[in-house]
């Protein structure tokens, strides 16, 4: 038994607080927040849509930072951070890509258009899928980590475009919520929005902790196996 096989106290606390905040956020988003005038109840997707988009991009930022750190320090830990974060980022981006079209259908009367925002979000998803494919295509641990890190840095070049797409030019997709003029949301909606953002961020942290621990256990098992057969 090593420390990795035990769930640490922080992880337990995190698990419970995530559970609770998600619950609260769900309540605030689905019940407490007022119904939007023109769009109706569909607008409630907003709280999950935007929160998961932000958390997804943050996850890719973590991939970027961890990849740089890996190339500089060569500690396997950074590699583990990078690819767990990539996996979780893909997960959240998938949520955006599911909630977006569900929202779009009633509002724009189409599932999809080739708006820069939607296009870049979609390719972000493909990019980090490709990131995973690189890992699958390489056998050697060190090389796998190194090439994936290189790609993780390069791939981040698309994230700012996605983020700034709506800020740079007019798109079909709604413009920025947070601008230099403050936040364009009714106070009740704002509460619900920040609650769900907080909940999703906590969820991200919890998933990260858990997956990192599991990856470490896997690495340990590999080591044990080596010890056994040699």
């Amino acid at each position, binding site marked *: 038994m090593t420390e990795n096989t035990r769930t640490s106290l922080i992880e337990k606390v995190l698990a419970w607080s995530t559970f609770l905040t998600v619950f609260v956020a769900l309540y605030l988003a689905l019940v407490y927040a007022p119904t939007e005038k023109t769009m109706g109840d569909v607008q409630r997707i907003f709280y999950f849509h935007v929160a998961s988009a932000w958390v997804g991009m943050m996850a890719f930022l973590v991939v970027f930072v961890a990849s740089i750190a890996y190339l500089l320090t060569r500690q396997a830990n950074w590699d583990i951070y990078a690819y767990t974060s990539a996996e979780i980022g893909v997960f959240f981006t998938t949520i955006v890509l599911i909630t977006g079209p569900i929202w779009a259908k009633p509002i724009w009367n189409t599932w999809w258009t080739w708006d820069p925002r939607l296009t870049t979000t979609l390719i972000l998803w493909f990019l980090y899928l490709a990131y995973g494919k690189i890992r699958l295509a390489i056998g050697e641990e060190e*090389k796998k980590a190194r090439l994936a890190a*290189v*790609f993780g840095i390069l791939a981040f070049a698309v994230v700012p475009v996605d983020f700034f797409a709506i800020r740079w030019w007019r798109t079909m997709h709604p413009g920025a919520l947070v601008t230099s003029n403050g936040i364009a949301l009714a106070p009740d909606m704002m509460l619900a929005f920040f609650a769900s953002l907080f909940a999703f961020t906590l969820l991200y942290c919890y998933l990260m902790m858990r997956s990192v621990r599991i990856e470490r256990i896997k690495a340990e098992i590999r080591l044990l196996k080596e010890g056994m057969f040699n």
Partner: protein
Amino acid sequence: MSFIRKVRSLLWKEIRSELQGKEMLSTMIVFSLLVVVVFGFAIDLNKDLMGGVLPGIIWITMTFAGILCLNRSFTAEQQNDCLYGLMLCPLDRSAIYVAKTIMNLLLMVIVEGVTIPLFFIIFNYPGPQQVGLFVIVLLLGTYCFMAVGTFLAALSSATKTGEILMPILLIPLIIPVLLSAVIVTKGSFGLVVSGADLYLKILVVYGVVFTVLPMLLFDYLLEV
């Protein structure tokens, strides 16, 4: 400078082995012409609409011709493990990257020079209104494509899946470039597109990013 001399020798080797031995260039030209023909009948639109579609067609064709070009770009290195031979040499790894990029750019520019005028003839389109802008966006887009493409070709040649992996790494990374290039090209055709100059700026930014990042990262890529 030693760096430039080595890039020149590498380029000489590239040109000797690719161009002479394999007739890469003529094949690529024929390939892009054929793609044009396929488009020609698969998508037949009347002239009014053509202006809106032609930029897309041009860039899609260049993307496929470029992928073909990139796929070949490291195969010579894989025969007899020549890449190991290169790695053995006391040379800045980025020299390899620079030489390969120049080679690929050269090929693509020649292909474009031949095929794009033919595009206008085949599709019976009068040609861009702003020729200068058109040429600039063509060169800039091609540069971005090859700068990041060569890098990714090197990356995927180091994996087992190799050339089948390369396009799926490249296409998503290059889509913002293509997106911008298509819009600016439309602008150069005189079709009113809002924010075309912004897209040109994006292209420039990508050009810079895709020059700096590969130069920084290439050493890590070919580390051992």
